[in-house]
């Protein structure tokens, strides 16, 4: 059983990272009823932006978040306001396919601009750990991921719960027409919601880039992780998203331990398919 406790600890911390990867997808699905298939690619775009900013200015990737956050908010806002809002309607397929198109454009744009080489956001934190006693040690980077992810998710929750804009977004999500009658500009509200979702994706992208290597084609892999978290945890619940992230991360890390590292992703997918088959609304989802 050597290292089992360490694996579980790593899995729990990684779960926080998965939760922030998913929160944007979950938010936008809950509010706009849109599956943003470009979610993962936007994350990776943020990672590349951070890479170049950090290199140009000689600063830590974490500091680039100051610029990444507003840039990603703007990208999300523009994407929703000028593209996705136009295809929103009764049917869910047209926006799904538009997002799919955006995803393909982003992937190939990144492939042309940034070359297919593996990249990572290196910093002094990359290899640091601190010992917990026993054989346990905490990788500092995983701990930072977990803390930032938690802060962003809790922050978003309070924003949606207690600010004027947040209430407007929730109103538009509950009943679009009633919200319009009450004077909510739903077009703008949706765009702000997407801005926030893509902003969280940007933070997630920088954290993922600091923790793992990434390629122009890494987006779909994280989209599937995000989708998995949403499926396991149920939609639109903050607790569910955390819970989903933990389950998926633990399934992957323990799966890798039992079957070998090549099967890490596969174990995640299998857990996901089982959950989908048994409880399509998610483990914590409402009936």
């Amino acid at each position: 059983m050597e290292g089992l406790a360490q694996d579980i600890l790593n899995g729990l911390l990684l779960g926080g990272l998965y939760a922030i990867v998913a929160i944007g997808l979950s938010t936008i699905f809950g509010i706009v009823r849109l599956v943003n298939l470009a979610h993962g690619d936007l994350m990776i775009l943020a990672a590349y932006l951070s890479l170049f900013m950090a290199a140009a200015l000689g600063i830590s990737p974490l500091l680039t978040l100051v610029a990444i956050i507003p840039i990603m908010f703007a990208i999300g806002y523009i994407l929703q306001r000028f593209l996705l809002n136009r295809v929103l309607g009764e049917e869910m397929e047209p926006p799904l396919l538009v997002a799919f198109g955006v995803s393909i454009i982003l992937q190939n744009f990144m492939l042309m601009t940034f070359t297919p080489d593996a990249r990572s956001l290196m910093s002094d934190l990359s290899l640091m750990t601190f010992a917990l006693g026993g054989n346990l040690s905490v990788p500092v980077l995983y701990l930072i991921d977990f803390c930032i992810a938690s802060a962003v998710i809790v922050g978003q929750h309070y924003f949606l719960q207690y600010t004027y804009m947040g209430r407007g977004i929730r109103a538009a999500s509950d009943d679009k027409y009633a919200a319009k009658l009450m004077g909510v500009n739903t077009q703008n509200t949706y765009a702000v919601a997407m801005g926030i979702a893509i902003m969280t994706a940007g933070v997630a992208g920088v954290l993922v880039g600091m923790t793992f290597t990434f390629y122009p084609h890494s987006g779909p892999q994280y989209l599937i992780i995000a989708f998995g978290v949403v499926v396991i945890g149920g939609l639109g619940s903050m607790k569910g998203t955390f819970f989903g992230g933990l389950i998926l991360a633990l399934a992957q890390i323990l799966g890798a331990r039992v079957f070998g590292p090549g099967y890490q992703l596969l174990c995640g997918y299998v857990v996901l398919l089982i959950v989908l088959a048994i409880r399509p609304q998610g483990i914590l989802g409402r009936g």
Partner: protein
Amino acid sequence: MPNQFTKVKWIILAALTAGLGTVPIWGTDYAMLFFMLFCIYLALAQMWNLLAGYSGLISLGQQSFVGLGGYTLAVLSSYYGINIWTGVGLGGLASVLLALFMSLFIFRMKGVYFAIGTWIFAEALLVWFSNWAYVKYGSGLFIKPTNELSMEAIYAAAFVVGAGSVALVYILLRSRLGLGLMAMRDDDQVAETLGVEVFRSKLYCFLISAFVTGITAGIFYVFQIFIQPYKAFAIDWTVKLVFMVIIGGIGTIEGPIVGALLYVLLSQFLAEYFSVSMLILGGIAIVVILVAPKGIMGTLQEKLGLEVLSPRRF
């Protein structure tokens, strides 16, 4: 005169089909390659259209069947020395079995969940095959024909699935099943009340689409000779199909024909710049969804009433 128009229409269609079928006789090698790819993409696109355009099943996991069809062929031909065309057929059969297994999970999901469920399946297969010693991990397998194969024979097979897929969808849609499908597409609850077996109809379409996609992929890999998990199970397959069908016109039989032709033309012009061609395809598809959501053929039908292969009997 509608009757005269019908007659002329069928003559033109027959002439075009005959022309396509006899490319090896009158065409150059390049023309043969071009129309072979056209036939293969046509069959794949027609099957995606059958699912997305008529059955309301948006699959983002057609690459599962492409990969399994290709790998079945590769394993059977290089490990067991089985005849290549038998291998292609068994690849189709393997795809049907996979589709049956998948349906246990994903037929409980609706709409967008179904789309992503199919995609997760494909990704899981990709990871599995690239970690599986039996199929030589990610480095791939060669397809070894038992006897010498001519390009003409491969072309003939591609033509059969290309033209066959159009005929199959046409016949299918004019059958009882097709009538039920169209009722379902308009309102599945009303259709169910009127006795259409929604679940079973959708399942049949899913299985048929898996079979044709599996054998078409087999023929493609007979031509390619070499198969790798990262190519065979790549989402790129579905990307291409979605764009062909959206641009050509989703939910029309002619749409995939136009879309496949445009795609093969575009990819020939931009063969050296794969990324650029995908970028352009993505852009065109978004513009089409925004401006003419019914695609080229769908818009023509609406504006001019031009319907060459009508699924309606009346």
